[in-house]
């Protein structure tokens, strides 16, 4: 077998077993040569050459001497320091070291580093080794560089030089070493130096196979790190043909590269689909021995198969019928093979086989167009759900989650509900239970919602703490989404609070309040239920909050029953008061003032409570102020005024469920798939897609329109508060010198102290509200759907650039070209029909949500209502920015494809920064302006984590694309970026200054914007922060 390091000749006695002073592992390796002999001594079963997990466990022995390195940590450190000092002196010594010694010491340094100690020298010696013509010296040099790369620019130049020489050496072994090093380091400097050469090596006719393999993956690494550095060109066409290469290893390496390139430029690599299909077909149909060393435990080329299947997932199903037929045949073969008896009992055999199977299923799900295959996939996964291998059960649950969202297989997935529920109850591994919970969530629809929700609630009682919050969110969402009667919904949420109150976040209990407020058919039931729940001797504080709010609003609905008469309600709530936190007590005080209005008979009792020293002189300012203000309000205001001010809360305007948003944040995109997917259950969307007020309440409020009743109470408030301030005693005014007028108005504005997230969107100031006599007519057709989930992400892509593909799916591609000057812009939208069938009734429209119409004028030209298969139509938009705006217009595209209506809403890539005009200025001017904009509200700042590699050039390009000028020599720190510009609108100009401070070490940025308009600062800051 391999001749590892030399060493048998060394016969030191600590190599013997049982030697008294056996040195510890780290010491031993410092003594290079001793390794092999020592190992031989302690090895029990020698001569075992076949590898398997079981056999390895016999030989991968733990030796006590090695498990406790060194007598003590200090001894080890002492020893290491001594050795480091020795190496340092050797390197510094007058005598030039020969290559061999250099290699030895560099290798020791590496070892010490890998033990976890810091190494701050030896880099130069390692670099010297690179240019040695002895292979082993070169090899150790490269290893050191790969493991301990240092961004010292001087060294990088030397390293690159050595790599350059090796790449040019025509010695394949040296070339591979150099390529490995580039792939291991993958830095931008290396990209700059070599990104142009490597494609040449990759496609050169005379490159050895092993060199091609390394070149492909080396290029992949550079492309991932800095795609801008890799020039596309003639080589790309030839790379695709590596899929046909004779050498399986070359194909294996090339597929990874091609897959990555495809994702960024699908059109340029389209030809790879048919090549990949034919390669896959050849592998899948080959006998288990055909591929010799590329067969793994009787499975032909499993790694390559998986990679090819991944590559195909970059594209829609092949259009060419022959290719498609061949592919479907492959997929069927894989599914058939899964049913055959295994060729080996080894787990490696079944893992490799199933790896291909799962990847095949992923492709089937990706295509989502072959009902037959989808159902077969589902049945196959169903078998795995009860497999004895935990790994397979885990993967089956995971994969079924995606199957559940396909209309073809949703029903088939549902048939496994009992098995999945059982998994939730009996799996011993929490990560498997988590998958089961995910799957239940994904397979839930109206028909099984009650069962699933009740099972999840039951599971919650014993669930692991780590996943409780997520389960709570899921239950809350399902309950809302599939509620047929809202009493069930209310019961479910109250159960959630009872079972896992600590994990019920604000979003969840805010939501139940919103829904109860908006639906008057459930209000009485909700009041009765919370009243009962509050009777429990120990109830969760969240229950008190929900109970307080609901009784304060709707307690009158159950007041007729003597068991829940007003005094009983009040004393029940007040019995919890003293045990609650300040926030809850503040909420309860609001409940009390609402009680005075609902139940005049409780007025004296409640005034007594408010007047008590513990409230009026409470150390907490918020509680004190509420007590003082409410007490005064209840004494000075007439019944009519009270009734108006303390009127029932108006319905909440609909918006995306905040719970769903939270789950998405927690789980990343795709988490809400069960709900986003309206096509599966179209009826549900209308009823439960959002909570709409029942017909008896006011018509659907739109975010821009405010509510009549609310406005009325505000009007009264303004009158009232001017009177009130005369009566208020000084302590309550302690917050602001101007008395409590602004304070109180904000209080009532937010509905007497209910949690602010619950407020209907309040206008900026009451005056603005009063000045706006009528809500603007709804500008767009009502049936425009909400933007697709990715709309924001797509929009973000265009913040710093003007051209590109805005959207693409299997049917349609939308491209954008735009230019902006001053406050004007022109945009060309290109709609491409990707199918071979004509689109009919094609109508793209631009919609201005809210009052955007007054801020941005978009004039669109009509387009033909038919788009032929494969054709592209163009639409011109003229854009004028009237004043600053925050939300982009929506682009709604509707058409019929094969008779089925399609609709799609996107965000038009027009953001305020498009109207930036860069402004150059000197440092002095900049700082003068910076200081002028020093009001806190003029500044917006964000500290955030880098999402992309931090690269100064890329950052510069982005900032220029954003629209501002870049000012050099302004910031004393050259790493920082400073920019300036003016946003041009018809009505006004907004000057903007920005500063971006990268912190490479922490991989963070701090972005500061100052503009003369507060919302603009914040908005620009948000937009730009997304880009890094």
């Amino acid at each position, binding site marked *: 077998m*391999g*001749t*590892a*390091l*030399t*060493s048998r000749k*060394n016969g*030191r006695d600590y190599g013997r077993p049982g030697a008294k002073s056996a040195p510890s592992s780290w010491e031993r*390796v*410092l*003594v290079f040569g001793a*390794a*092999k002999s020592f*190992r031989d001594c*302690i090895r029990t079963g*020698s001569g075992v050459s076949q590898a398997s*997990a079981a056999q*390895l*466990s*016999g*030989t*991968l022995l*733990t*030796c006590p001497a*090695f*498990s406790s390195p060194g007598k003590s940590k200090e001894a080890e450190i002492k020893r290491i320091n001594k050795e480091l000092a020795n190496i340092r002196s050797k390197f510094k010594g007058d005598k030039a070291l020969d290559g061999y010694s250099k290699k030895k010491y560099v290798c020791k340094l*590496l070892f010490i580093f*890998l033990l*976890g100690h810091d190494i701050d020298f030896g880099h130069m010696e390692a670099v010297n080794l690179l240019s040695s013509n*002895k292979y*082993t010296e070169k090899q150790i040099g490269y290893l050191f560089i790969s493991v301990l790369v240092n961004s010292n620019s001087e060294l990088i130049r030397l390293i690159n030089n050595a790599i350059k020489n090796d790449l040019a050496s025509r010695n394949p*072994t040296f070339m591979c070493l150099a*390529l490995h090093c580039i*792939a*291991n380091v993958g830095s931008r400097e290396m990209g700059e130096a070599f990104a142009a050469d490597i494609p040449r090596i990759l496609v050169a006719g005379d490159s050895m196979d*092993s060199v091609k*393999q*390394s070149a492909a*993956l*080396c290029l*992949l690494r550079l492309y*991932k790190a800095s795609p801008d550095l890799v020039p596309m060109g003639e080589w790309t066409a030839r790379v695709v043909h590596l899929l046909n290469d004779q050498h399986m*290893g070359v194909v*294996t*390496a090339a597929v*990874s590269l091609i897959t990555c390139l495809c994702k960024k430029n699908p059109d340029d690599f389209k030809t790879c689909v048919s090549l990949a299909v034919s390669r896959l077909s050849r592998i899948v149909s080959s006998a288990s021995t055909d591929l010799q060393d590329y067969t*793994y435990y009787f499975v032909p080329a499993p*790694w*390559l198969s998986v990679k090819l299947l991944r590559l195909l997932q970059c594209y829609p199903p092949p259009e060419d019928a022959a290719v498609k037929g061949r592919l479907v045949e492959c997929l069927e073969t894989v599914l058939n093979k899964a049913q055959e008896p295994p060729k080996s009992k080894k787990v490696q055999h079944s*893992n*490799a086989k199933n790896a291909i199977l*799962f990847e095949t299923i992923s492709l089937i799900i990706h295509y989502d167009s072959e009902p037959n295959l989808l159902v077969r996939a589902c049945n196959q996964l169903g078998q795995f759900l009860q497999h004895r291998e935990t*790994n397979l059960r*885990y993967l089956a649950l995971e994969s079924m989650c995606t199957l559940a969202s396909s209309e073809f297989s949703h029903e088939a997935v549902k048939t496994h509900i009992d098995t999945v529920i059982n998994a939730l109850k009996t799996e*011993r*591994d929490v*990560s498997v239970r988590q998958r089961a919970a995910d799957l239940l969530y994904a397979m839930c629809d109206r028909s099984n919602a009650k069962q699933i929700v009740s099972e999840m609630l039951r599971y919650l009682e014993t669930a692991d703490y780590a996943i409780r919050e997520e389960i709570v969110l899921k239950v809350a969402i399902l309950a809302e989404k599939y509620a047929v009667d809202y009493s069930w919904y209310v019961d479910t949420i109250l159960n959630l609070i009872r079972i896992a109150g600590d994990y019920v976040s604000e979003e969840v209990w805010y939501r139940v309040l919103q829904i109860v407020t908006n639906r008057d058919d459930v209000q009485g039931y909700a009041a009765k239920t919370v009243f009962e729940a509050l009777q429990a001797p120990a109830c969760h504080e969240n229950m008190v909050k929900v109970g307080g709010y609901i009784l304060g609003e709707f307690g009158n609905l159950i007041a007729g029953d003597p068991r829940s008469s007003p005094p009983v309600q009040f004393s029940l709530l007040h019995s919890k008061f003293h045990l609650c936190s300040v926030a809850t007590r503040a909420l309860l005080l609001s409940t009390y003032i609402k009680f005075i209005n609902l139940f005049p008979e409780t007025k004296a009792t409640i005034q007594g409570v408010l007047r008590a020293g513990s409230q009026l002189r409470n150390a907490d300012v918020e509680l004190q102020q509420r007590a003082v203000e409410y007490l005064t309000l209840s004494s000075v205001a007439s019944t009519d005024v009270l009734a108006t001010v303390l009127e029932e809360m108006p319905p909440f305007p609909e918006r995306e469920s905040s719970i769903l948003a939270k789950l998405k944040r927690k789980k*990343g995109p795709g988490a809400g798939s069960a709900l986003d997917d309206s096509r599966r259950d179209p009826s549900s969307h209308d009823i439960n897609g959002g909570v709409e007020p029942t017909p008896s309440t006011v018509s659907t409020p739109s975010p821009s329109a405010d509510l009549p009743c609310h406005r009325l109470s505000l009007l009264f408030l303004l009158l009232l508060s001017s009177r009130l301030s005369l009566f208020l005693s000084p302590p309550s005014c302690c917050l602001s010198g101007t008395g409590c007028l602004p304070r109180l108005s904000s209080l009532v504005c937010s509905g007497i102290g209910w949690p602010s997230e619950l407020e209907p969107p309040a206008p900026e100031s009451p005056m603005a509200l009063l000045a706006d006599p009528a809500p603007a007519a709804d500008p767009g057709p009502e049936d425009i759907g909400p933007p697709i989930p990715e709309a924001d992400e797509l929009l973000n892509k265009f913040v710093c650039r003007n051209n590109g593909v805005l959207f693409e799916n299997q049917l349609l591609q939308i491209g954008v070209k735009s230019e902006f000057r001053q406050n004007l812009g022109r945009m060309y939208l290109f709609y491409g029909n990707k199918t071979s069938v004509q689109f009919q009734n094609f109508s793209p429209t631009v919609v201005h949500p809210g009052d955007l119409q007054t801020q941005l004028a978009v004039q669109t030209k009509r387009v033909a209502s038919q788009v032929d298969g494969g054709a592209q139509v163009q639409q011109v938009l003229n854009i004028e920015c009237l004043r600053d705006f925050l939300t982009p217009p929506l682009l709604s595209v509707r058409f019929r494809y094969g008779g089925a209506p399609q609709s799609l809403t996107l965000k038009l890539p027009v953001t305020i920064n498009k109207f930036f005009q860069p402004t150059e200025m000197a440092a002095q001017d900049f700082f003068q302006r910076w200081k002028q904009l020093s009001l806190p509200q003029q500044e917006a700042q964000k500290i955030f984590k880098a999402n992309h*590699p931090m690269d100064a050039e890329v950052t510069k390009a982005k900032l220029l694309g954003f629209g501002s000028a870049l000012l050099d020599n302004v910031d004393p720190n050259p790493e920082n970026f400073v920019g300036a510009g003016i946003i041009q609108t018809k009505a006004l100009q907004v000057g903007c200054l920005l500063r971006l401070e990268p912190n490479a070490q922490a*991989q963070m940025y701090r972005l500061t914007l100052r503009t003369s308009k507060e919302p603009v600062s914040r908005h620009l800051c948000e937009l730009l922060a997304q880009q890094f």
Partner: protein
Amino acid sequence: MQFMLLFSRQGKLRLQKWYVPLSDKEKKKITRELVQTVLARKPKMCSFLEWRDLKIVYKRYASLYFCCAIEDQDNELITLEIIHRYVELLDKYFGSVCELDIIFNFEKAYFILDEFLLGGEVQETSKKNVLKAIEQADLLQESQNEEWGGLSEDIL
């Protein structure tokens, strides 16, 4: 694949390979966190777990844990077999490998890994081809072996 870690049952890191740029601090943090998480798991549990936004695939061979971090769309089972194939390669090269081989000949473990995986992707799955590459290098080394002879004499 984003990185691969080998550590012992005692939590000692034996080999680390990073395919994404990370600071030393971050690497140490990740290692600490993962070693702890994986060591806490019981033998019969499944070999995959979600961790941050990555998937962790791990397997224990005798006293050593092999642990890979892969991305969301990557295939867990094939990763498990990447681990196994690497163990096979080590085993074949060292002649039934043990933890000490990896400690003492860490550079070989790295070289073998580089031949098998590059930039986080499988480069060559044929056992023969990988070992051929390594043995060629060893041959080059043999020819220069004379110099190595003196090594043990002047240690420390």
